[in-house]
């Protein structure tokens, strides 16, 4: 008996040892990663989009990183503290960090980068409250704010705040077209750029003097551009492509699920916070009437969209803020399929049925380039809204520019649309609802929604340093807009990462692959 127990314990110990060695990270290897949008620049200080942010976060280091629970972690800054009045953020930088050209990273570089981003980044609310950056010594940078700005902690993350070497990018040439944005890029991140073939591939190589010891594990990252989702899935199945982030084609995801070599996960998109919605032209009749907008909401079956059209890979969006965000509130006006109520609302709004059963004819546009998140939902509007007497004509846009022009000139009835929140409502949510952001541009407040109370709430929430109070303000905002319904949220976008089982520790922090891949490693088989 005792022997048996001893044998059992030995077996357990051996098994434990075996699993431990299987999980032991291994140095080396090349991670081949896919991307759907081509990279046009590596300088994420002046550009957004996954094509820039994913490689940018590998090449440049940022003051802080974030884990998968929204907690900031030291990166270039060893520590940081916010003054009691919340008006200055002091960063204590590591002293051992160097750029790829061997020069040290100093507070001068941090100050230069923050001001460059403030003045040039397309997300212009992100660092707008920054007044100046003081540099009392080489390892200390103090960010002075005009008013409290809690979003700053996320704006200092890897996809949004690359620290650029001032001695290269501060040479007076215009930063948006700086030649070093695309070649001889110099950062202080874990990987350096060695090859860039636009539209084809990017080769990043391990930076041996990277300031975190024994990281990264990978020797090389190759980013390959596959504009066609079917090509990526074939390459994944063949084992030539090891990791494909930002993937949202339902059919291919469904196919990857059944492949024993592949794993799919929706972790790593929390801060991205992508939501798609039906945009109403609030300035055009009859969409200026809230009853009409609500009628649309009661006629659209979002459960059908999620279960049938997205095969359960997305999630119903209940309001303007993604459910993965700390500011998300579930206490909002909810809309579920109710055709009777929809018809009553339309009757009350004076849109009576004609002899042919039609009350209203509308055109529906959609943002091209996202088949499952946009085009198919626009097509779905036709049968769904017909049930309440609304005839929908889908206006297929020729290309992105054609759709963007319709949005900018407000030449639409309803349109499918989507946006990413990027870490904080101030960065990616406000732009859709602030009356001050009704501009002749795509991805602004194209519903032309004006509510002084919402403007006030968003302003106050953006400045509120206390997290709980801030959440309450955003809660009230969510309550108001879900009742006003300037647009109707459909789903949280079905973004997933597909990866080969050889890939260990795939990026699952709130930024996913738009964060440095320090812990990712590859096993042999």
């Amino acid at each position, binding site marked *: 008996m005792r022997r048996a127990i001893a044998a059992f314990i030995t077996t357990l110990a051996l098994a434990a040892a075996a699993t431990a060695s299987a999980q032991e990270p291994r140095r080396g290897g090349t991670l081949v990663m896919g991307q759907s949008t081509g990279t046009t620049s590596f300088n994420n200080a002046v550009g957004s989009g996954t094509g820039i942010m994913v490689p940018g976060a590998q090449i440049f280091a940022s003051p802080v990183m974030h884990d998968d629970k929204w907690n900031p972690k030291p990166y270039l800054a060893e520590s940081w503290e916010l003054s009691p009045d919340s008006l200055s953020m002091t960063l204590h930088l590591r002293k051992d960090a160097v750029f790829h050209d061997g020069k040290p990273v100093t507070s001068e570089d941090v100050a230069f980068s923050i001001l460059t981003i403030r003045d040039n980044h397309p997300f212009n609310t992100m660092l707008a409250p920054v007044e100046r950056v003081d540099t009392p010594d080489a390892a200390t940078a103090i960010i002075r704010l005009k008013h409290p700005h809690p979003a700053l902690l996320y704006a200092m993350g890897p996809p949004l705040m690359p620290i650029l070497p001032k001695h290269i990018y501060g040479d007076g040439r215009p930063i948006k077209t700086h030649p070093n944005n695309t070649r001889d890029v110099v950062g202080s991140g874990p990987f350096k750029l060695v090859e860039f073939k636009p539209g084809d591939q990017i080769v990043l190589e391990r930076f041996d003097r990277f300031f975190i010891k024994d990281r990264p594990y990978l020797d090389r990252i190759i980013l390959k551009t596959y504009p066609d989702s079917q090509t990526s899935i074939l390459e994944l199945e063949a084992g030539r492509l090891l990791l494909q982030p930002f993937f949202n084609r339902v059919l291919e995801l469904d196919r990857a699920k059944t492949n024993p070599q592949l794993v799919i996960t929706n972790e790593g998109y929390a801060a991205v916070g992508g939501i798609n919605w039906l945009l109403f032209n609030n300035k055009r009749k009859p969409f200026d009437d809230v009853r009409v907008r609500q009628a649309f909401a009661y006629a659209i079956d979002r459960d059908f969209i999620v279960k049938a059209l997205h095969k359960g890979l997305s999630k119903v969006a209940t309001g303007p803020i993604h459910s993965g965000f700390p500011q998300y509130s579930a206490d909002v006006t909810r809309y579920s399929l109710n055709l009777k109520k929809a018809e009553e609302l339309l009757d009350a709004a004076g849109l009576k049925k004609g002899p042919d059963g039609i009350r209203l004819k509308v055109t529906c546009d959609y943002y091209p380039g996202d088949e499952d998140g946009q085009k*198919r939902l626009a097509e779905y509007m036709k049968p769904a809204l017909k049930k309440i007497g609304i005839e929908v*004509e889908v206006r*297929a846009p020729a*290309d992105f520019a054609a759709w963007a022009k319709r949005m900018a000139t407000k030449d639409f009835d309803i349109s499918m649309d989507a946006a990413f929140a990027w870490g904080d409502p101030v960065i990616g949510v406000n732009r859709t609802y602030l009356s001050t952001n009704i501009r002749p541009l795509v991805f602004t407040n194209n519903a032309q929604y004006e509510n002084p109370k919402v403007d006030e709430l968003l302003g106050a929430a953006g400045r509120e340093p206390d997290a709980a109070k801030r959440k309450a303000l955003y809660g009230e905002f969510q309550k108001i807009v879900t009742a006003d319904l300037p647009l109707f949220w459909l789903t949280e976008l079905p973004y997933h990462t597909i990866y080969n089982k050889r890939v260990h520790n795939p990026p699952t922090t709130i930024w996913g692959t738009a964060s440095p891949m320090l812990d990712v490693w590859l096993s042999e088989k």
Partner: protein
Amino acid sequence: MSVAGIPRTEHPSLEAMRMFARSPVAVGGLVLLIAILLVSLVGPLVYVADPFDIVAAPLSPPFSDGALLGSDQQGRDVLTGLIYGGRATLTVGAAAALISVVIGITIGAVAGYFGGTVDEALMRFTEFFQVLPSLLFAMVLVTLFSPTLTTVVLAIGVVSWPGTARLTRAEFLKIKQYDFVAAELAIGARRGRIMWKVILPNALPPLVVSATLAVGAAILFEASLSFLGLGDPNRMSWGLMIGSSRSYMLSSWWAVTFPGLMIFLTVLAVSLIGDGLNDALNPKLRERR
């Protein structure tokens, strides 16, 4: 067709009809086309439904509840799509072929009749269209003007006329040397009369055949454009059905197979008719029989 050089015992078009009727293949094609036309034109009047309605769970297989031939990726009924989609497909086919024939005959006739610099200029112009890959060119046109039924028809018409123009020109070059044309000239007939009333009717037989085949080609063209996602999303057509379900081809064969079959049958019918017409209108073959 009033003018002909050779004396005949019977009116030539009547004889052609007789020849056509004698060919079982051609008659088969005609019967098939009539059946398809009936389904597409009368079907929607008898069977009233909206092809865009969601009637079943997406991608239900054939013989499911509410979807006899299965449903597509949105849950729309494939059978309803087949019945209603024919109108758009056939309209595109006929209208685009008409446009291409009108442009082709006009340019070919003018070039062939006048010859010289006019011919030279028009043929270079034709070549410009001939060297462009026609599908690619049509895609560019549709993309530029956004996909609606009208733009699709125009795009197909505009890219597919050069063949007809070449054929017409060749016929005109040949026929204008015949004695009966010289006779018309001698009695002082005007150019317009000679071109359209004298030469054209004699050039018609090959052109009729080519026009028939152009209808089939235009239908295939529409299907190709829709397959690539450039069809009008508001008009159900067989091409649109294939285009919107093509990604599901391997998992749900019915959503693409049935509309594909309809296109195949239509183009086959049109081709058989074209073949029969060719046999019937070709004097050499006529004598052989």
